[in-house]
């Protein structure tokens, strides 16, 4: 098996792809956001519970390839119990990870376990898979923020 392929399909990814964590509906979520990739038909729903600008719980459901399932599963592990603003920074960092030819050491350290998805860089057609859950996160947080603004104004 070739190296690029092994770098893409690391153990962790195969594992999370097969057994995604927090794979369920959330009771009373603050927001539930659909993510959809028309190219391949991957579709997921991300549930977020937000309180005082912090993500206190998250989960997802859906169908998709190993990359999109694993990426979302790993994302949720990481964003639980962090402030919205940090989740947004993570989004940016993750985006750099999968699109920049050589992400900085700082980015890599910041992303920690999420760096297992770096291998997708060499598979341009698969970047959308790796970022599907993340785009749902961003949209969900934006919506949540604008709703909060609406409700507090």
């Amino acid at each position, binding site marked *: *098996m*070739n190296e*690029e*392929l092994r770098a*893409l*399909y690391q153990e962790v990814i*195969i594992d999370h*792809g*097969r057994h995604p964590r927090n794979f369920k509906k959330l009771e009373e979520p603050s927001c539930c956001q659909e993510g959809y990739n028309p*190219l*391949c*038909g*991957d*579709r997921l729903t991300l549930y977020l519970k937000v309180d005082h600008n912090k993500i206190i719980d998250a989960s997802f459901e859906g*169908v*998709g*390839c*190993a*990359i999109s399932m694993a990426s979302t599963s790993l994302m949720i592990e990481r964003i639980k119990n962090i402030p919205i603003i940090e989740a947004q920074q993570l989004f940016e960092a993750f985006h750099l990870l999968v699109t920049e030819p050589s992400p900085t050491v700082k980015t890599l350290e910041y992303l920690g376990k999420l760096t297992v998805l770096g291998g997708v860089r060499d*598979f341009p*057609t*698969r970047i959308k*898979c790796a970022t599907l859950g993340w785009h749902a996160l961003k949209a969900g947080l934006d919506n949540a923020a604008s709703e909060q603004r609406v409700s507090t104004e």
Partner: protein
Amino acid sequence: MSLISSFPIMSSSCNPAQNTIDWTALRSDFPLLSQQAHNKQLAYLDNAATTQKPNAVIEAIAHYYRVDNANVHRGVYELSERATQSYEATRNKVQNFLNAWSREEIIFVRGATEAINLVAQSYARPALKPGDEILISAMEHHSNIVPWQMVCKKTGAQLAIIPINDSAEIMLERYQQLLNEKTRLVAVTHVSNALGSINPVQQMITMAHEKEIPVLLDGAQAAAHLSVDVQALDCDFYTFSSHKAYGPTGVGVLYGKKRHLDAMEPYQGGGDMISSVRFEHTEYNSLPYKFEAGTPNIAGVVGFGAALDYLSAVGFDNIVQREQQLLDYATLKLQAISGLHIIGRAKNKASIISFVLDCAHSHDISTILDHQGVAIRAGHHCAMPVMERFNVPATARASMAFYNNEADIDQLVRGLAQVFKLFS
């Protein structure tokens, strides 16, 4: 002629009778197939998406631009006359290819998609009333769904869907029931791109015509793999794309019975499709030009002519026989793999195999196969309702052309072994 002499099967044998084809020599007519992908010999198994082009086609296009290029139909000078003749010669070839009654029934468009849209807008839209029905099947490509949805939205007509059984075959009794006095048109695919099913179109047309309902056939997956005779079929419209028939991109064919085409409104307005223009009043040109506004894809149509010559030199008897061999071989090999499920098991099938694996999503399959030099398609194949019908998010699809061989299929099978290694 140089195009013919560069065609290997012609030099070895002038009579394209069955079994005389040297398929290995013929493969070398397709320059793309000799490339390496990821350091492996390329096994191109995505022919339902688009086919590769023989040298004769590539050369015909280059020759057109180097020697004959001019605008058509309007120039008095010789160059323009030559361009017009090569362009119009392809119309005659298509007429023969489909056995149409008249060359005026052949309209050049961009592809199957545009052909269907043309019929939707110029034939259906002016005629449809609220409550009318367009009947399509549950195995249509988006190109044979969305144009009808758009026209239904404008007119208040409705889509009715012919169901398919678990083997991916049209349910003819249900079809019979669905044909009713509200049905204005039946639009079905001749061969399904996602399932491979060859539909019983002859029978379906007879049934529709008994109720005087016209029938459009989407031949995108059929025209290059079966021999089509529109007069024998008696279909009202037939549509297909050059790029899926070894020809250039950007060219397609709408065949329509003359009396329909005559009665239809033009689709686009512009040069060539008019007879006289005044600001107050414009007269449209006669068939087929009424439907070919503006400068057409001249070089593409000329190249398409070379593709049709190539196809007829190989011969449909040979093509059908060879592709069925490949289908049988691939089916045998794939169904022997446990954890692999073929989606689409119609009795009559073209050389298209859709499948899913228990252990891996089609997208992952395709990525891994690509690294083994195997090009297949993964996804919904522009047929989302088919995915819903079979309750799968997506499938992997291998589709074969006559230039494929058993080695390509073996390479696919070896590639799948890698998928299993990684995923189970």
